[in-house]
């Protein structure tokens, strides 16, 4: 009898717990598969090996029928391919939503407001030390088409002030399961030409323009 009560209580706390939160996922993908770092894959006429993927999601806002139902308290969230726990964002509140809007990257105000802890800590490797500013989106690896030393390519997309503002907005009808379809970048960028982008400049802006369409709802 006592055991039943205990289980019942456990069940109820579990129930209420899952009803009290909203959880969304951002899954880095490559051709439909979960992104695997440091693994050789063949894409069109390229042999690719992605070694690093990180990206900031900020100003996350939830909408239902075009009106705001919740704004995430967290200023910016870092997605890091080496840490699968970073693929989830949890809101400690339950609400219905049919759309999310967010920025890819860190906004200009945050960029000029000094030092922050947690996801915005410069120790995460997403901050330029020689010229203040966050890297919004980082993808690195080896491509057989890349003419650089050891075929290494570096896409460090950042820059917060005009004309090199690389923050991009996304609005997505979704139930909370989002994939980041990275192969699309290799279709749209000629990696034999643009293989080293590591400062706020025209190339960074051009790549930034391609980022919003990588984000797709799984439904």
């Amino acid at each position, binding site marked *: 009898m006592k055991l039943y009560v205990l289980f019942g209580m456990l069940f109820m706390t579990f129930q209420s717990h899952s009803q009290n939160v909203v959880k969304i996922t951002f899954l880095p993908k490559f051709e439909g598969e979960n992104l695997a770092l440091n693994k050789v894959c063949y894409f069109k006429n390229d042999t690719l090996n992605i070694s690093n993927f990180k990206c900031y999601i900020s100003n996350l806002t939830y909408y239902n029928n075009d009106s705001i139902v919740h704004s995430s308290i967290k200023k910016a969230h870092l997605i890091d391919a080496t840490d699968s726990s970073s693929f989830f964002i949890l809101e400690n509140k339950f609400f219905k939503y049919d759309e999310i809007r967010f920025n890819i990257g860190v906004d200009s105000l945050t960029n000029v*407001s000094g030092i922050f802890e947690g996801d915005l800590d410069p*120790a995460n490797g997403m901050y330029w030390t020689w*010229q*203040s500013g966050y890297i919004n989106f980082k993808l690195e690896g080896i491509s057989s088409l890349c003419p650089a030393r050891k075929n290494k390519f570096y896409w460090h997309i950042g820059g917060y002030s005009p004309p090199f503002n690389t923050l991009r907005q996304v609005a997505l009808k979704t139930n909370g399961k989002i994939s980041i379809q990275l192969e699309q970048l290799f279709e749209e960028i000629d990696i034999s030409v643009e293989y080293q982008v590591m400062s706020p400049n025209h190339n960074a802006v051009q790549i930034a323009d391609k980022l919003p369409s990588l984000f797709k709802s799984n439904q």
Partner: protein
Amino acid sequence: MRKNVIILCLFAFMMLSFVLVKDNYFFNPPDYFPKPFYDFQQNPLDSNKIELGRTLFYDPILSADNSISCASCHSPFNAFAHTDHDLSHGIFDSIGNRNATALFNLAWQKSFMWDGAINHLDMQALAPISHPSEMGSSINEVINKLNESKAYEELFSNAFQDSTISTAKILKALSQFQLTLVSANAKYDRVKMGKEAFTEQEKNGYQIFKNNCASCHTEPLFSNYNFENNGLPLDPTLNDLGRFVITQNENDKGKFKVPSLRNLSFTYPYMHDGRFMTLQEVINHYTSGIEHSTTLSSQLNESIELSSNEKVDLISFLLTLNDKDFAFNKKHQFKKIVDQAKE
């Protein structure tokens, strides 16, 4: 009864004044200074944090091989510049491409470095820490090394009531120490406060300064901290285009941040590449060495004409901006262990 109330009021007033004094104790610029730009509310000054910042500032642990500290290129006796070196030098005897800037009155500056590459005082230290020819390290490496130190465990714990070491704590502590580097007790300041008077020659020099220099080197900080091209011919061995490197904007070619004219006797050589050793050379540049270009500061379009007597007078005024109290202030210097035991 009434007496008690008066005593109580007096006591309350004393306590209040103590609190107010404590608030301003570490940062107390004169009334005629403008409002600081740094947001102290985000990083309120505290004696233990300043102390931690001072210790870090003088500690070569910030560099890859424990050889270079901030003070290696920013010496307190040179108003935190590096006298005698035209270009800064760092780890493994490497030479940089600019003159180490003097560090004082940083709370009034919106950006840092000669080209404004750094947008906030808190972020400044990351640049020399990770620059391959300055300290050649990284913030992660610094945190790892500090984590092995017992002394720092205590310093961080005193400063933040928590001994965990993080980027934010290191940078905020370094900012705190540097914010206390206020230079505001030169003869100019004492004249301003009515405590002293200029000589006739200094008065003449002040007038010449106001007519020819003050639009960029604005009082009382003696810089507007904007970016200007002051007509220096490009040094082909450096090809340094200054602000343009950061903004990629053609209009910024050859522009550098206007430096303050305070403490000039301690901070030679002058200009972003330390090309001039003496003030005489600097003034001669403004009277006869200006190279005209599309980005030349509009203030320099008309030539500045000064007689040799006027040049001497101008220099005598500029020397009233030397702040010896600042350059030799013990509070800013390396803390010796003997001193610590005595305290």
